[in-house]
């Protein structure tokens, strides 16, 4: 039997009918009339602006905050996206010329575009705040309201009452709403900005105390590229999971494979979960209890001292505070790191592997073995993910891990890193100028609820606000662009709800997004944004794609859907109503700005084609950085006298006098400790919290899942079925509670409750639960989060120094749900 090729164009022809099932058609039906005949059996025609039934291909990109950036080919017929595919690359067999292949999320852009939860027109709240009841209004009304609320806030409270909320839903988008919103606010006298991010506030705050400040912590100034692993014989990763957190085929996951293929280095991953990187890189998995990494490092250090594996001379040359000899003047006796390790410090406890095994859950024998493995390595690469620092004592944990390569001499040499994530090189691209912000005060990214609730109590010394000694006014106006923080990604959502629901505190909430997110439900004014495929931009490879860096021109693949408009055009209308249009636009259209940014980029790189020639090109230019030129601390290692670090001493500060000063100057919570050395500190809701564990015996950590990037894409059924959100639980903990794989369970503590299916798996250490962060919060009438959002359970208690988010430090219990 041979009936080949009969259904040549079958699947495409049935696109609309099929979409009914995936939820896209409800949206489509409003806008489009169904074509009677949906195309002949013709081949894809790569001609721009083709007529009816012809396929066109435009280049867009996935703009979420994964750290990578994937260009997308968007296939379109009759102004409807039919599918997504990868760019072509130059030669896929050659690393650095390879195709930048999107992960499953980039491949889901068609469904995300037509998702029924897309916002379709401007809306005004009619119910209680947070209730999610709105009425449709016109753009004219919407821009009137926005303009008048801005004017009112500025006139009544001043510009310091406006807060621009953290949000990463359009990361990398260079010209779209993020920068432009700030530009408009700056033309109006400014706004309070945040410092730090929900991803990495603690490590980015602490790192300069150890290594000195740099201009670019993400990049290669203080991080080696993963490509250097081609020179390593050992790779040790703390809480790092490149296979899930840096999934782009153009990015670090590929770079790491490539480097490992050259060196065959052994990989060790220390993590509460046997994560997908353990599987992918065939790593030795060392399960660890959350929040105890600094104890592990201390015990490794103890072993190295006992085994005579420390090069004291080297440490004296490069470090301050390793031992009493190198303590800064005035530091207390035995306050150095070595004395702390040996038990000569205040606590009088030697940090033996036996001491650490009780905390970490890792046997003393394995700790000794790990210490010797690192010591024996010719070139050990040591790095950490950001989950370690996203804990209650995260600054100390992250700093301890950064100390490990220093103590073992694995820094500033080929194949080494300095305990940070690992670097990336950004393709230099000009962006739209946001202008300077006349308001100089900034608050830690995590402190905005406090700044609403009791703003005037926040000071530099109790809340790490910068640019001013204290806040003079609380937040009265929240500007949320492409941000799902206020109702989803912030900690302790029930407490947050109480703060936001009080309209006397924050008086106005603008949410501007593509979807009806949990945060959008808190809007007073809700504006619909175009998605990436409906707009144009000029972007680079983002902040963590690795050595491979590139420039992408995004061109709108379809017209804006429904009443959605380009952000710039809306802001121009608002600017006009506030009489700042000329300052805002400088007489330029959105397209003018794209072209201008391109020309500025080209001015620094004359080999680039002219703007007209980049039409339809997608990836305009690509480069591969030479990782030998990006080895962290190489200059310092080679010549510490003439290439000092930007620390007060010019050396690596294992003991930081600056931190010692902060510890005495700041007004710290009595339960918070800040040490000048990277000591292990027990955490509230950590492994040593006996009272807490008695009530809630399980530690709960979040993790980044392949199914969504933070909360972006988390609502798509096509991704949910591929990668189901579930709470990871070890069979031992599950059996105790008679929980079986796939059953719905309730996870709870004093802050809240949520439902999720159980994933009963040996791939997690007993005593610990793990829930993927980013699931869309949704409460039932009993206040239980049936969306499975972990932040129903997380704490708003900020960390000691960065005042950052400790969202992986929680105690909970879990039980089988009986419905």
């Amino acid at each position: 039997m041979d009936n080949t090729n009969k259904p040549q164009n079958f699947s495409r022809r049935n696109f609309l009918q099929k979409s009914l099932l995936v939820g896209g058609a409800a949206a489509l039906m409003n806008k489009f009339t169904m074509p009677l005949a949906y195309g002949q059996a013709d081949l894809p025609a790569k001609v721009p602006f083709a007529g009816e039934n012809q396929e066109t291909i435009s280049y867009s990109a996935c703009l979420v905050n994964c750290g990578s950036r994937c260009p997308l080919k968007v296939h379109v017929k009759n102004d409807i996206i039919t599918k997504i595919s990868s760019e072509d690359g130059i030669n896929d067999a050659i690393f650095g010329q390879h195709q930048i292949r999107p992960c499953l999320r980039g491949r889901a852009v068609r469904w995300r575009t037509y998702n029924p939860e897309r916002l379709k027109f401007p809306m005004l709240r009619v119910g209680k705040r947070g209730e999610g009841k709105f009425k449709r209004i016109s753009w004219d009304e919407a821009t009137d309201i926005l303009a008048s609320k801005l004017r009112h806030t500025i006139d009544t409270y001043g510009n310091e009452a406006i807060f621009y909320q953290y949000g990463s839903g359009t990361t990398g988008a260079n010209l779209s709403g993020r920068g432009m919103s700030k530009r408009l606010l700056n033309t109006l006298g400014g706004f309070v900005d945040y410092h730090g991010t929900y991803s990495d506030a603690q490590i980015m705050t602490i790192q300069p105390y150890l290594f000195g400040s740099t201009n670019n912590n993400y990049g290669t100034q203080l991080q080696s590229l993963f490509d250097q692993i081609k020179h390593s014989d050992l790779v040790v990763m703390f809480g790092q999971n490149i296979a899930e957190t840096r999934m782009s085929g153009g990015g670090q996951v590929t770079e790491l494979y490539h480097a490992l293929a050259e060196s065959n280095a052994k990989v060790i991953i220390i993590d509460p979960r046997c994560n997908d990187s353990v599987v992918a890189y065939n790593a030795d998995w060392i399960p660890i209890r959350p929040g105890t990494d600094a104890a592990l490092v201390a015990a490794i250090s103890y072993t190295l001292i006992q085994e005579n594996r420390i090069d004291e001379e080297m440490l004296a040359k490069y470090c301050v505070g390793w031992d009493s000899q190198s303590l800064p003047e005035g530091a207390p006796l035995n306050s150095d790191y070595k004395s702390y390790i040996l038990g000569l410090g205040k606590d009088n406890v030697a940090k033996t592997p036996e001491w650490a095994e009780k905390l970490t859950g890792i046997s003393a024998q394995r700790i000794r073995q790990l210490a010797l493995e690192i010591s024996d390595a010719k070139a050990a690469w040591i790095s950490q993910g950001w989950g370690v620092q996203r804990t209650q004592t995260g600054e100390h944990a992250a700093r301890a891990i950064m100390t490990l390569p220093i103590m073992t001499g694995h820094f500033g040499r080929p194949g080494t890193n300095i305990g940070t994530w690992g670097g990336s090189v950004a393709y230099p691209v000009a962006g739209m100028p946001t202008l300077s912000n006349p308001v100089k005060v900034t608050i830690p990214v995590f402190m905005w609820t406090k700044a609403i609730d009791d703003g005037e109590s926040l000071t530099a010394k109790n809340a790490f606000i910068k640019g001013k000694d204290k806040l003079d006014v609380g937040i009265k106006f929240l500007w949320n662009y492409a941000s799902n923080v206020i109702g989803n990604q912030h900690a302790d959502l029930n407490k947050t709800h109480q703060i936001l629901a009080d309209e006397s505190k924050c008086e106005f909430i603008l949410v501007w997004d593509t979807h009806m997110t949990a945060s959008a439900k808190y809007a007073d004014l809700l504006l619909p944004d175009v998605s990436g495929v409906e707009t144009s931009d000029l972007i680079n490879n983002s902040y963590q794609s690795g050595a491979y860096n590139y420039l992408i021109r995004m061109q709108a693949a379809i017209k804006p859907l429904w009443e959605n408009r380009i952000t710039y055009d809306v802001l121009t209308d608002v600017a006009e109503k506030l009489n700042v249009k000329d300052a805002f636009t400088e007489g330029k259209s959105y397209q003018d700005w794209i072209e201008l940014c391109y020309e500025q980029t080209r001015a620094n790189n004359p080999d680039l084609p002219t703007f007209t020639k980049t039409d339809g090109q997608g990836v305009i230019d690509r480069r591969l950085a030479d990782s030998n030129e990006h080895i962290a601390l190489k200059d310092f290692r080679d010549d510490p006298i003439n290439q000092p670090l930007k620390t007060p001493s010019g050396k690596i500060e294992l003991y930081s006098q600056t931190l010692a000063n902060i510890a005495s100057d700041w007004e710290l919570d009595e339960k918070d400790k800040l040490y000048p050395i990277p000591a292990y500190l027990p955490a509230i809701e950590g492994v040593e919290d006996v009272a807490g564990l008695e009530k809630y015996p399980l530690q709960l950590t979040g993790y980044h899942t392949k199914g969504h990037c933070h909360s972006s894409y988390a609502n798509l059924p096509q991704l949910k079925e591929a990668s189901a959100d579930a709470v990871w639980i070890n069979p031992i903990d599950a059996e105790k509670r008679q929980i079986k794989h796939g059953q719905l369970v309730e996870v709870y503590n004093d802050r809240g409750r949520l439902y999720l299916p159980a994933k009963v798996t040996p791939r997690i250490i007993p005593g610990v639960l793990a829930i993927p962060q980013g699931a869309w919060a949704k409460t039932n009438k009993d206040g239980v989060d049936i969306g499975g959002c972990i932040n129903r359970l997380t704490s708003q208690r900020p960390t000691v120094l960065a005042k950052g988010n400790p969202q992986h430090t929680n105690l909970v219990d879990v039980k089988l749900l009986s419905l």
Partner: protein
Amino acid sequence: MQYGFYINSAKCTGCKTCQVSCKDEKDTDIGTKFRRVYEYGGGSWQQTNGLWQNNTFAYYLSISCNHCEEPTCVHGCPTGAMHKRKEDGLVVVDQDVCVGCRYCEMRCPYGAPQFDHQKRVMSKCDGCYERVSQGLKPVCVDSCPQRALEFDDINVLREKYGNERDIAPLPNSSLTKPNIVINTHAHAKCSGDTIGRILNPEEI
């Protein structure tokens, strides 16, 4: 001529891009998975002196239709809708002929034939023969960020990569003679293994 897949399980991160890109290309419904990524693993945890010891292992195996030499789905099809193409050996279902009896689904040990609940007939991976006829690879292969999938003349693949295909949770290859070659993960277990289990039954 017989096409087949090479599956590099040692490189697979289990990311599911293959499954999702197929879904986009073929426009399949929720619940229909032409390609499924098995998470296979196991191990146990024991406590001694308060410390946990474990021998956990896990690996991923991305499986679509294996376009078998002896396709039991074809043999059991009462209408002839399920057929193996002479020119390229790909197993394809003709939905105009299929009556939706689902015998093929019951017979296939790999879960390849997928019932289309809209049309009430079977659907399945067709090896992207339309793309292949244009000189392209199946979309799953072209989309894999790890480059862990290949598609070619099975003889070419066997020459390059050997003949391994008896890997859990797949059944023994003698059953249907699947046209696949697997590069095994370091922790791979043989077909028929009872130490491990499928850890993601809800995702396949």
